[in-house]
């Protein structure tokens, strides 16, 4: 443009044309070089919608990730976190589905409580996971543990668990405890869930007060708050939920290699691998709530190159030592899952057939008095 202007001020038409051509060539050249350098134009500002309040788990997760992502993208875009809480994350996700631009400048951070209502056909949900493409997912594990008064070892505690009704403090019938409730039911335990806890932390308090007989925590809370109880002989770990490997199989959680998974405990008790609609429900809610607990999503129509750029940026840092060290405190010892693997697992988890859903509705009604 500058060249054009100077050319204009000086005389002849021929020179003008020449200058214009040169200008064109230069811009063209600079364009091609920039394409070679960074493949696609990353937006300078990225708005990352977090459908939860400030300071909540997903918010902290996003704030942890944003500097890493920003630094490994070309041009270090400003990633601005926009908290839109309400409706247990449904409001924010609805708004994102309605308004988000698909030019790569808008991301959404979701969590189990965004996935579950969509899987359960909650009438408030106006978003659809098939409209979005995942960039990255971070998994978490979880451990079920019991009061030592049920039994000093995992085996005796499990035996006792199957003989008497036990209480567990939970948030809502369709909250993050859902797969745990299904798993315990499959083992044959008579679990009386006491709902109304405002967080898993409150559930743990009820356990520590001796009100709840068994409890369940996700990995990071387990490590910081339950492991000291286990060491003091005030809690007995029973089993972990496990972890999804790349083929979608549930394997032992790398954080708790010595602890059997639910599948193993079931196999040992029933002599066969878990199956049926209830296992189908367990597996899907486990996958979407734990193996892919928190997700970075973009609208499906975002340019494919840009999606690849974002995924590559994530791949670039997740295996560095610096990230692993920083992530240990935030995410636990799990490596984020990136790209097509997430897409595959997500597609599998989010598609629930009607038979499984109606089994679930019946089960919730009869076991926990909750209507879907």
């Amino acid at each position: 443009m500058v060249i054009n202007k100077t050319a204009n001020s000086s005389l002849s038409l021929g020179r003008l044309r020449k200058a214009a051509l040169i200008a064109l060539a230069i811009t063209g050249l600079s364009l091609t070089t920039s394409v070679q350098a960074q493949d696609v134009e990353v937006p300078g500002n990225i708005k990352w919608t977090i459908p939860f309040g400030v300071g909540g788990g997903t918010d902290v997760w996003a704030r942890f990730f944003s500097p890493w992502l920003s630094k490994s993208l070309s041009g270090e875009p400003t990633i601005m976190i926009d908290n839109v809480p309400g409706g247990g994350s449904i409001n924010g996700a609805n708004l994102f589905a309605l308004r988000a631009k698909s030019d790569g400048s808008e991301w959404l951070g979701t969590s189990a409580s965004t996935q579950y209502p969509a899987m359960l056909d909650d009438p408030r949900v106006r978003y659809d996971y098939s409209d979005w493409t995942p960039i990255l997912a971070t998994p978490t594990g979880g451990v079920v543990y019991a009061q030592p008064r049920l039994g000093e070892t995992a085996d005796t505690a499990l035996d006792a668990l199957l003989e008497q009704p036990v209480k567990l403090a939970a948030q809502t019938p369709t909250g993050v405890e859902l797969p745990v409730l299904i798993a315990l039911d499959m083992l044959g335990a008579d679990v009386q869930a006491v709902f109304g806890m405002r967080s898993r932390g409150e559930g743990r308090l009820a356990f520590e007060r001796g009100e709840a007989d068994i409890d369940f925590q996700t990995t990071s809370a387990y490590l910081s708050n339950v492991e000291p109880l286990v060491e003091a002989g005030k809690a007995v770990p029973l089993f972990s939920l496990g972890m999804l490997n790349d083929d979608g199989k549930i394997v032992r959680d790398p954080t708790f290699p010595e602890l059997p998974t639910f599948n193993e405990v079931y196999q040992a008790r029933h002599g066969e691998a878990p199956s049926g609609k209830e296992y189908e429900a367990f597996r899907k809610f486990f996958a979407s709530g734990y193996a892919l607990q928190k997700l970075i999503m973009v609208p499906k129509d975002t340019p494919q190159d840009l999606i690849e750029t974002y995924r590559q940026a994530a791949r670039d840092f997740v295996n560095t030592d610096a990230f692993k060290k920083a992530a240990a405190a935030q995410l636990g010892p799990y490596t984020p899952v990136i790209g097509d693997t997430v897409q595959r697992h997500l597609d599998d988890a989010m598609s629930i057939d009607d038979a499984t859903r109606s089994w679930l509705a019946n089960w919730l009604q009869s076991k926990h008095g909750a209507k879907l």
Partner: protein
Amino acid sequence: MLDILLSSLGQLFTLSHLLFMTLGVLVGLVVGIIPGLGGIAGMSLLLPFLYGMEPTVALGMLMGLVAVIPTGDTFASVLLGIPGSSASQATVIDGFALAKRGQAARALSSAFLASMIGGLLGAAVLTGFILIARPLVLSFSSSELFMLTLLGLSMVAVLSGRDLFKGLAACGLGLLVGAIGMAPATGEFRMNFGLDYLYDGLPLVVVGLGIFALPEIIDLLVKRGAIAEEPCNLGEGWRQGIRDVREQRGLVARCAAVGSLIGTIPGLAGSVVDWLTYGYAVQSAKDKSQFGKGDIRGVIAPESANNACACGAMVPTLLFGVPGSGTAAVFLGGLLLLGLQPGVGMIETHLDLTYTIIWSLALANILGAALCLVLARPVASLTRVPFATLAPLITVLIMFAAFQATRSAGDLLALGAVGILGVLFKQANWSRPAFLIGFVLAPGAEGYFYQAVQFQGTDAFMRPGVLIIGALIFAALFIPMLRSLWSKRRQAASVGAAAKVRNEPPTLGIIDVVLFAALLGTAAVAWIDMADLSLIGGIMPRLAVAILAVSCLMEIARCLMHRPQWQRQPIGLQGLWLAGFFILIGAMLLLGFITAVTLFCLVFLLTIARLKPWVAAVMALGVTAFLVGMAKFLTLTYPSGLIDPWLFG
């Protein structure tokens, strides 16, 4: 042990720590003064800088913020009658009454001094208590928590005084409104009438602003004049406030102790403590006649408690990772970002950091209260400004605050709806605190009752803690009644002329009649809506309906039995202003928040406040700049409407 204490103390006074703490204090004061923002907005302002910071320095900054929020919000409560956050609701009652009597400077200076002392006592208690707090926190099971919510609810009886049934009806309505949304026990949705907005229930900020602030604005507009109805001497008032705290030092110490202990109980904290201490101040006073009309003790009690409570709330946050209040929840997020996992580790391995946190709280309290004390005198002169000039600014402020609750148009409409109720209550002299107490405690009362029964069965109500709190409730309800009966009898015996006090006839007015009809209608509609709820999910709202309906009927019966004294209750002008408020909401949704606000301020200041055109224009533009600036710095959004996207992007 001693070396840890000393090293934390050394850490506290390093230059970087002091600098960042001061930064936190300043941010905290700014967001504290602007109603509706509170700790959560302040935290979100600081959180982006947190990741990667040195933990001790970052903690100093966060604590600076946490400590001064219950201090800064006092400005709005006292001067404008706006409950800045849940911690300052009780302050509004007598604080704003004092401001209207021209004693704003007195109320502010004693509030800040009480805050400072409360915060310091809280930190002192916490220093020793945090080491032994674990068993105590764990001894509060769901049944004790339920009893504590009952204790909070029993304050309704204390606060409503002579009009007991009206107070109970207000409380019943509060309980009912508080039950809107998800049933904690079953996850059923109640009384949402198909509106998405009601699925989460009404936000506390919106209800607080609607019930307290909006009626006061309208009342002042109808009366004209300034907030201070009597001439005021700010300097003398300021010194008087300091003297008041000195005279009430016993009350300060007791309320601070109660505040710091209640703060340690997870899940309750801020919502009951100001009402409990306010109720206690009323109970323990010999002369109760001035409460609600401007008694300085009604300011000192909740203010000395709420800063102490913010200290106490650190106990469950640090030891159990279960935040005791909204601000503490955000603080918890900050801890996680710093890579600190709350839990026993905070005592066993990070005790030095824990002490840095506690003492930063104390230091920030001193700093924040000192700054506020300096500011109190000049800011109190706001109460001398003609109210018509302030009205548009305050109206915008409360709408701004309400909209930040969930950022949906429903917030503004709910503000208007609760505002109508507030205006009716105020004009007919029904207890607005009773409504708010019911609303605030409804979820806790229901949730903890259900949990107590589920976990402990009937044993729940035989536990020693339950019995102790039960005795407290009994004492709160009946001792003053017995005492007044006793003194009356003695008076009657000696003078024989006190009989007329007891048989004062009930008063009745047109608004009372309207309220009876509306409340009974509400009760009927709610009852029908709850038809297909399960037993457990419906028990609490049904109880609320029962309280509401029975108290209304009792009051009606009282009016039928004793000939009521007819009272003129004007409502015409108030109704007009309310209609104007809804038109303003409509304009905001249609044109966009910023455009509508700018036009509204300009027109209001020109036609109603009759300011000079250039003054009006400057003020309107100032409001616009404030809104745009807030949107930029705090990434807030407003209703966009048709014009805002064009003008403001």
